[in-house]
């Protein structure tokens, strides 16, 4: 098994001590990993480091969007050729992420976006499905992108795309912001079927439906110019 040192997985983590080491160990044999410890109160950073990741630590919690941008900046500075954004809670499948990278390279794409609705979901609550479907309709209307999924954290970006996209929404609205920038920058993108596994852990850690109100508020007040 060879490790691709031009491929960087960026993982934003907040209080993911119990899971992060396992997630990093799953990725590290294949690619470089940077975990951005977003002001965790637990030992997330130490666990990630022990798992084999580089660790950049936010001294105070700034949100997933801010953490991903930190990780992308770090990966680009280390010479990343491709960047994968990957969730810290074990929802994503490394093999599928590597398939997405291979597709990105083979087809010369700027971005490959994971879609759970082209692929599969395991134990996805109905309420979450409903909220994500609503987000898909909203994203299609606001960006014009003909997507089947929105707010899927598994994405592959080419170096060029990762440099062009700047995440200014510090919190959860970054997912919509990335799609909006992909549309605005006219990047060459495709969706790729992925499997999202909702475990008891990830459901407890993941987004609450009430967060959608916060996302709308963030989008309303915008981000720094």
């Amino acid at each position, binding site marked *: *098994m*060879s*490790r*691709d*040192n*031009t491929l960087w997985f960026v993982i934003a983590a907040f209080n993911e001590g119990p899971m992060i080491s396992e997630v990093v160990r799953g990725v590290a044999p294949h690619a470089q990993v*940077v975990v*951005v410890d977003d002001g965790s109160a637990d030992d997330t*950073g130490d666990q990630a*480091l*022990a*798992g*084999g*990741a*580089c*660790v*950049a*630590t*936010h*001294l*105070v919690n*700034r949100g997933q969007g*801010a953490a991903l*941008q*930190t990780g992308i*900046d*770090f990966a680009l*500075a280390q010479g990343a050729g491709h960047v994968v954004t990957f969730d810290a809670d074990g929802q994503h499948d490394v093999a599928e992420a590597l398939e997405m990278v291979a597709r990105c390279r083979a087809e010369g794409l700027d971005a490959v976006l994971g879609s759970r609705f082209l692929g599969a979901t395991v134990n996805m609550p109905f309420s979450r499905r409903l909220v994500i479907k609503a987000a898909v309709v909203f994203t299609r209307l606001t960006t014009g992108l003909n997507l089947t999924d929105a707010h899927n954290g598994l994405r592959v970006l080419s170096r060029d795309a990762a440099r062009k996209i700047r995440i*200014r929404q*510090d919190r959860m609205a970054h997912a919509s912001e990335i799609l909006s920038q992909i549309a605005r920058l006219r990047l060459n993108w495709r969706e790729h079927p992925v499997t999202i596994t909702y475990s008891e852990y990830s459901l407890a850690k993941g987004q609450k439906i009430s967060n959608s109100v916060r996302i709308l508020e963030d989008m309303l*007040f915008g*981000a*720094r110019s």
Partner: protein
Amino acid sequence: MIVSLVATGLFLFVLFVAAVRKFTFFGLKVSVMLFAAAGIYFVWNPDQMTRLAQLVGVGRGADLITYATTVILFLTVVGAIIRERRSGDVLTLLVRRLAIQQARFPERPKAGPGSRG
């Protein structure tokens, strides 16, 4: 009488603060000063407030004050949220810079013959 004096004192304080403080927009400084000056005038001439209210179709001076206060409060809250977000943005940039500068690297096993890069 005491209420009028207290209200006048408050408006004078706002007038003084607006006069000495720097504002992002000069128009905002003028608006706040005009608001405070108008406040002092209407405290001592309440009938004029009622006339003004009737002029704009509100009816009573007290109603006009309520509406104006609501709008001003709303704008103040929106302004505070925007300022808080700007401060947050600066904090994010600072936190990011430090995180990257002070990143920790894992101990690497020696590269094998199959490794790339």
